[in-house]
């Protein structure tokens, strides 16, 4: 059980700081449980006291007194009170500890993710990583809240009741427990069966939801092609599978609670039946006999409670173990390597890529022997078909990935000799698909420099040509951007991210131009913003626009990971190679 050990390690790590609280909770649980088990004995004594009183009252000459009854009643009240006080105190401590420690787990997971490599994020779907927060941590929290605490308290209760029963009457104790091994076996096999059925149910539900999602997202196409009926027909089998799988899953998972209630009833019947028979046939004193039955009726009910509780938490516990393991898997993935200690200063000479080789997967090289030499304040346009490796160059300059061969130098120093933070402070990027966060516009622009004043933010926005647009919004720079809204068009998002980059004033700029769905007006704004951001900076631009390419100091044409042409526009046109063909093809106006 390596997985179990890993999960236990994980829980121990986060719970260790709370050992005092846990100890406190354990002591109060023990005390409370003790009182809880003890109380029924007083209830029994009370009944027995009443019986004695009654018998004495009808026996001439005997002294009838309720003294014993009162004593027992007071004892019962005190012990019930103590039991609830103990359980409340430990419960409060536990709920505090579980929410605090899960909060720390949440934060720990987030902090851990901040240190992972880009390779990790590129090779794992966001949705899957996100489910660590939404589903796995939730499962852990649920288990912490109920299961972990309950295993302890219910376990104590269970053992305590057995002990008490044995002390009271061996025979009756055995009678009370006789059914339980059978009940546990049945319960566990049902839990197991339910888990398998639920897996099938989840699989079927996942398939169905996937189908629904895809079809409805493409509803416009379905309508345009007149495929509604076909879509309903294909829906049928998915729906049927869910129906069948869920009927079984629901049956088995829903069976546990009524079955355990049923067993509890059966057990109680056995206890009452056998107890009464025992009292009558063993010539037991009536007062003692009635009290025995009263006590064991209560114990029988209490005894079954932990059994049903413990079987019920088997599933949440499994989920929590899986969750803890998934989170631990993330911890074990490699972190970003900081590299050397050198601090990157302002760029003085330039950036040189020499004989760079790179592959995301060893079998599929992406860049082969790529050499590019950029002098300070020059602009290089990277041009080439999709998949030629343009974006990869960008990934390497910012050290999102490390090279397989060759080297990239910043003022003569290889990138990996720099402290990563200092390097990234010098390098700014503008992505093709701009990222906008659910914050105010001001916070979005000041993302890389949270301490920036409003004046600085406005200045950056002006240079990025988006100030006017922002001012046209009712709340101006304080406008909240929310994830789904369409406040910004694709082009405006790019302007926003240009402003964000301008504010941090990087020495080296990497810019991936947005392509699709940019209208003419915005296109011109982007053009101007790009000129502003590139002025006096050294820049690599993954270029899609002709205008951008034409204004480059140097054009590098990439194809299949190799540099096939390099030079100024005029030189490349004169070469009549790939670039010139590309150029004339874009100009199909005449």
């Amino acid at each position: 059980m390596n997985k179990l050990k890993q999960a236990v390690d994980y829980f121990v790590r986060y719970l260790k700081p709370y050992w005092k609280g846990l100890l406190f909770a354990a002591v109060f649980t023990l005390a409370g449980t003790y009182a809880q088990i003890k109380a029924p004995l007083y209830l029994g004594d009370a009944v027995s006291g009443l019986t004695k009183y009654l018998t004495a009252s009808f026996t001439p000459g005997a002294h009838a007194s309720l003294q014993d009854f009162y004593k027992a009643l007071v004892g019962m009240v005190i012990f019930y009170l103590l039991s609830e006080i103990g359980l409340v105190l430990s419960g409060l401590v536990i709920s505090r500890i579980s929410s605090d420690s899960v909060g720390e787990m949440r934060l720990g997971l987030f902090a851990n993710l901040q240190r992972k490599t880009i390779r990790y994020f590129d090779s794992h779907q966001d949705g899957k990583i996100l489910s660590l927060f939404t589903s796995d941590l939730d499962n852990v929290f649920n288990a912490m809240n109920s299961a972990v605490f309950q295993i302890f308290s219910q376990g104590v209760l269970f053992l305590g009741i057995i002990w008490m029963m044995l002390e009271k009457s061996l025979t009756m104790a055995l009678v009370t427990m006789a059914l339980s091994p059978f009940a546990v076996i049945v319960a566990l096999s049902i839990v197991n069966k339910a888990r398998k059925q639920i897996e099938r149910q989840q699989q079927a539900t996942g398939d169905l939801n996937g189908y629904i999602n895809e079809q409805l997202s493409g509803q416009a196409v379905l309508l345009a092609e007149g495929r509604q009926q076909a879509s309903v027909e294909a829906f049928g089998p998915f729906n049927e599978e869910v129906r069948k799988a869920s009927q079984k899953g629901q049956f088995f998972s829903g069976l546990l609670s009524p079955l355990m209630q049923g067993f509890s009833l059966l057990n109680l019947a056995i206890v009452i039946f056998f107890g009464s028979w025992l009292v009558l046939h063993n010539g037991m004193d009536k007062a003692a006999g009635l009290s025995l039955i009263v006590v064991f009726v209560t114990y029988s009910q209490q005894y079954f409670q932990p059994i049903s509780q413990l079987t019920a938490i088997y599933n949440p516990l499994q989920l929590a173990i899986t969750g803890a393991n998934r989170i631990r898997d993330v911890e074990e993935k490699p972190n970003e390597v900081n590299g050397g200690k050198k601090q990157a200063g302002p760029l003085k000479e330039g950036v040189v890529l020499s004989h760079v080789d790179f592959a995301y997967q060893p079998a599929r090289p992406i860049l082969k022997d790529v050499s590019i030499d950029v002098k300070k304040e020059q602009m290089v346009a990277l041009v080439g078909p999709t998949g030629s490796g343009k974006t990869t160059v960008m990934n390497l300059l910012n050290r999102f990935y490390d090279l397989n061969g060759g080297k990239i130098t910043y003022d003569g120093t290889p990138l990996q000799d720099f402290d990563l933070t200092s390097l990234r402070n010098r390098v700014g990027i503008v992505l093709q698909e701009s990222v906008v966060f659910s914050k105010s516009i001001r916070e979005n622009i000041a993302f890389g420099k949270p301490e920036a004043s409003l004046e600085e933010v406005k200045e950056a926005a002006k240079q990025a040509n988006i100030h006017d647009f922002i001012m046209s919004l009712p709340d101006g720079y304080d406008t909240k951007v929310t994830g789904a809204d369409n406040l910004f068009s694709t082009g405006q998002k790019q302007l926003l991210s240009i402003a964000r980059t301008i504010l941090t004033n990087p020495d080296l700029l990497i810019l991936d131009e947005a392509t699709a769905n940019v209208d003419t007006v915005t296109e011109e704004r982007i053009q101007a913003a790009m000129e502003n951001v590139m002025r006096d900076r050294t820049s690599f631009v993954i270029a899609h626009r002709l205008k951008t390419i034409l204004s480059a100091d140097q054009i590098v044409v990439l194809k299949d990971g190799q540099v096939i042409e390099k030079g100024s526009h005029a030189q490349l046109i004169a070469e009549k190679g790939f670039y010139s063909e590309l150029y004339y093809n874009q100009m199909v106006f005449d």
Partner: protein
Amino acid sequence: MGLLITYAKPYWKKITVAVVAVTLMAFSTLAQPQFLEKMMSAIIQNQSDVILKNGAFLLGLALLGILAGITGTYFASQVSQGVAADIRLAEYEKIQSFSLEQVQSYSSANLVVRLTNDINQVQQLVMQSLQMVLRVPILFIGAIVLAIWTLPSLWWVVLLMIVLIVLSSKRIFAMMGRYFGKIQHLIDQNNTLAQENLAGVRVVKSFNQQGQEEQNFAENTAQLTAVNTKIGYLFNLMFPIFMLISYAAIASALLFISTSIKEAPDQLAKITPFITYLNQILMALLMLGMISTFASRGFVSLKRIAAVMGEETAQANEEGQVAIEKDAFLTKELVVDGLTFTYPKAEEAVLKDLSFTLAAGQTLGIVGSTGSGKSTLALLLARLYQAEKGQVLVDGQAIEDIAESDWHQAVGIVMQKPVLFSGTIEKNLRMGNPEASQADLEAAVSAAQAADFVFTYPDGLEHEISERSANLSGGQKQRLSLARALVKKPRLLILDDATSALDARSEKRVQEVLEKDFGQTTKVIIAEKIASIIHADRILVLDEGRIVGSGSHQELLEESSFYQEIYQSQKGKEGDHE
């Protein structure tokens, strides 16, 4: 509610069995203390035969309870999942009869939730109802009646206990309710922070903002933890408070019995059954609380589903519509007359009184800035939207009057955002024309310039497209959705910025093929780049929903300053560099 009844009706037999089983289980629970009382009296009176007889009853009753429990669960799951599947199918059918406007007014993401999450809630509601809704009232009322019947003088203990528990749980639930609202909001925020951090991981790293991000996340998490703790506290207080109330009831019952035990000695045997009933009342109250949360969620979902089911949809009414053979479709002209369209909730019309005529077989280009109404026009021409005013006529016939199936066979549209479905390429291509031959498919693939990559797959057209077309690039998706429209050999082809992700050379080839092999087809091409429509027979320039220019490329260059501006901005200043 009416919806639920309609869909539950076919299951009435199974529902009856489930309800009977659950009722039996409730009765066996209630009857047990009665037998206990008889047994205790029998002990006092030394009646061995009574004990044997009642003991056998007791055991039989418990076994019946177990059996009823299993049966009840079985039929409850059959019914609840059956009803859920039936409603889901009906709802899906309903949605498939929606117009595009209806789908968009809900948004497809919202409809997905109504088909998945809401159905689940309703399923839970049905399941819980069958398992508990009858059982709990029976248990609750039964236990009260039996408790009072057992010891009538103690009626006030029963009543007081119920009142106290209801009052205290109301108070606690009210406090919890407030925190639940808060926690949902905080969890959403927490997820958003994590999600945006993941989506923007490159930005975060390149701006060195990991620390700041962590701090923001920590602040939110601290709030979340605080509220979680409070809810935990309340939960932990609730149960002990209930238990204390019931213990107090037991203690006062005992005390009052002791004062009158001499007058009514039979009370002695009744103490334990009475206590058991008090416990059953407590349990029933707890279950009642649970049901009410389930039920309120379930009813909200039911309402959301009912809203979808209650939408009015245009019946597929082919009567009174004209059937048109594909070859006879659009042989003369396409006329757009006074077309006006406003989006729901929008203040201003997106298309304003648009009119133009296009002769069959001609190519119409449409350019204009974002928001000029180009895509809306495409959807109106494809009959996916209905005009608010004005009409579209094909050979003099209003498009609404043409039989829907004939229409879809004759018209192809390629939308701005290419959508493909998971499954083989072939399956996708055949969507609009299931009878297409293998040769037709291959021809369409080459025409859309997709042959380059499709036929490098070892399995060619059999190649599987994965979910969300994750294994295709933007350009590949566009090519395949273009091919899908071409497989139909449409009489009218509408392209909405459908070649934007293609490189210039491929785009030029697509234009050539459309010109050569689809000469009979009337084409409407919407584009951002003038290069895409430069050879069109006629070009419309749209601005804010109106036609501001119309003519050939040359004519527009001479006449329309708006068009010139666009052209210049795209052309680049090649003169400076040559």
